[in-house]
């Protein structure tokens, strides 16, 4: 196996020809569906009359009902065994840990893991970290208290399994974390994009150069990471920065390799369908946007059959210069929940992030606000410069931002300048988009 083997965490799955990958996925879909029907109350009820043995093709799979986060909430609220409810796929005494969704879109969901299922998730993350170049010699600093949020726990366990030295960075402020990175000579970070930028900003304010702190690579979690933000992080830290896509319920299901040109779907761990946004019935073509519907194929404690993630992604091709044969995702366009119609135009906050992070390095933070003014929607962008700038320079900057946003989104933004440091800094999920129309009972279709 030699050198070639070291390029991959598991070359047998990562270079498997596509037609074999597909056969394996359909076989494992049958297995997990059979398991779910036999062990989970939810599927016994909702999947009556569906025979796993009859599933032979993707067309057959498309006839199986989907579930979404609201179904998971219903399966847990007031249902036994507390707090996991009907969906649980193992006896409750086998649950060794659980994580929770962040509650961004409603009541948090409890996601139970047996030791077996947890190790399956960790194995997926070993692939992610290995693809990003993490090796035994890395010292991995994780600048968070992880609480019940899953990604950093997965990254922590996987980095340990790889043989890295892991340094958890909870219970410190940002300055303390920067000092710890220098003290232990950390070489890698697991981070949220927002906090990665904030740490770099804080380092500079302390007279430190983040590029000279020895960080060689970073895997980001918790938020969408448009390429413009990823590149800004790379420039800030002088490091390779990698994205992944995933969630607490299904696990991480796509990640970047060293090429950093799109994300590999983690096949055959997952069966991922990218379906058209209108009907959710047709697999989209390469280059098209679609909603990701994900089935984790080997996780039994919390079986998810055709889970509608509501992540809107652009489908890529299969294969990559790295030699992996898996299907690619070109990038994440946002969450279906975040898509809004503003003055009749379909809008996603990621498009603003791409402009601000990609073209305006002088802007440190921003916030988008949508309001109803009379019968009209008004969209504004609060911008906070990196440092104090003169009135004339700010006017010119606002004009340029407004023009670029108009071109990118087809919407006229009201630009509101703020003083440096005026906007909040986030550590886990940022809240840079506020649609106040919903709060006042207005339309937000």
């Amino acid at each position, binding site marked *: 196996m030699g050198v070639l083997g070291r390029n991959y965490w*598991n070359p047998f799955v990562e270079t498997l020809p596509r037609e*074999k990958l597909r056969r394996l996925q359909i076989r494992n879909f049958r297995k997990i569906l059979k398991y779910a029907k036999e062990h989970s109350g939810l599927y016994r009820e909702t999947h009556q009359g569906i025979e796993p043995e009859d599933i032979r093709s993707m067309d057959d799979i498309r006839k199986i009902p989907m579930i979404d986060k609201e179904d998971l909430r219903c399966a847990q609220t007031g249902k036994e065994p507390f707090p996991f409810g009907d969906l649980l796929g193992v006896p409750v005494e086998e649950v060794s840990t659980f994580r929770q969704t962040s509650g961004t879109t409603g009541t948090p969901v409890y996601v139970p893991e047996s030791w077996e299922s947890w190790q*399956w998730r960790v*194995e997926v993350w070993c692939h992610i970290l290995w693809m990003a170049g993490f090796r035994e010699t890395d010292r991995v600093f994780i600048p968070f208290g992880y609480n019940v949020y899953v990604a950093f726990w997965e990254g922590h366990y996987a980095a340990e399994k790889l043989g890295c030295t892991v340094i958890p960075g909870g219970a410190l402020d940002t300055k303390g974390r920067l000092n710890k990175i220098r003290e232990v000579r950390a070489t890698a970070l697991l981070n949220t994009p927002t906090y990665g930028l904030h740490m770099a900003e804080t380092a500079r304010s302390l007279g430190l150069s983040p590029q000279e702190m020895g960080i060689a690579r970073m895997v980001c979690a918790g938020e969408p990471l448009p390429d413009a933000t990823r590149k800004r992080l790379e420039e800030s830290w002088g490091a390779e920065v990698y994205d992944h896509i995933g969630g607490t319920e299904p696990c991480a299901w796509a990640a970047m390799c060293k090429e950093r040109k799109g994300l590999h779907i983690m096949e055959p761990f997952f069966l991922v369908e990218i379906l058209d946004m209108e009907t959710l019935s047709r697999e989209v073509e390469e280059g098209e946007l679609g909603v990701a519907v994900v089935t984790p194929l080997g996780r039994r404690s919390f079986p998810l059959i055709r889970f509608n993630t509501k992540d809107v992604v652009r489908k890529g091709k299969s294969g990559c210069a790295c030699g992996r*044969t898996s299907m690619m995702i070109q990038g994440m366009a946002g969450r279906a929940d975040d898509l809004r119609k503003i003055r009749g135009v379909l809008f996603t906050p990621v498009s603003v992030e791409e402009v601000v992070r990609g073209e305006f390095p002088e802007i440190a933070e921003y916030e988008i606000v949508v309001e109803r003014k009379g019968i009209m929607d008004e969209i504004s962008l609060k911008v906070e410069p990196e440092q104090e700038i003169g009135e004339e320079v700010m006017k010119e900057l606002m004009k340029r931002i407004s023009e670029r946003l108009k071109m990118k989104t087809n919407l006229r933004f009201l630009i509101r300048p703020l003083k440096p440091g005026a906007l909040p800094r986030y550590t886990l999920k940022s809240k840079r988009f506020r649609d106040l129309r919903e709060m006042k009972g207005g339309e937000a279709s």
Partner: protein
Amino acid sequence: MIGTNGDLLRQMKTKIDGIENLVHELQLLGGGVPAIEKNAQCILSFTHALQFGISDIAEVEDL
């Protein structure tokens, strides 16, 4: 291509099956002893990951 190396995969699958069988035998021998039961369960979690990444590939090679 490494992914088509059927003989090696089949050999590894045999070993993984062997580990699983040995652990089940150990569970029978040490039934009721928490140190045996819990450690055996942990080993089976790792064989699950190996079955997913190795044994399943060997099987699909043979389909």
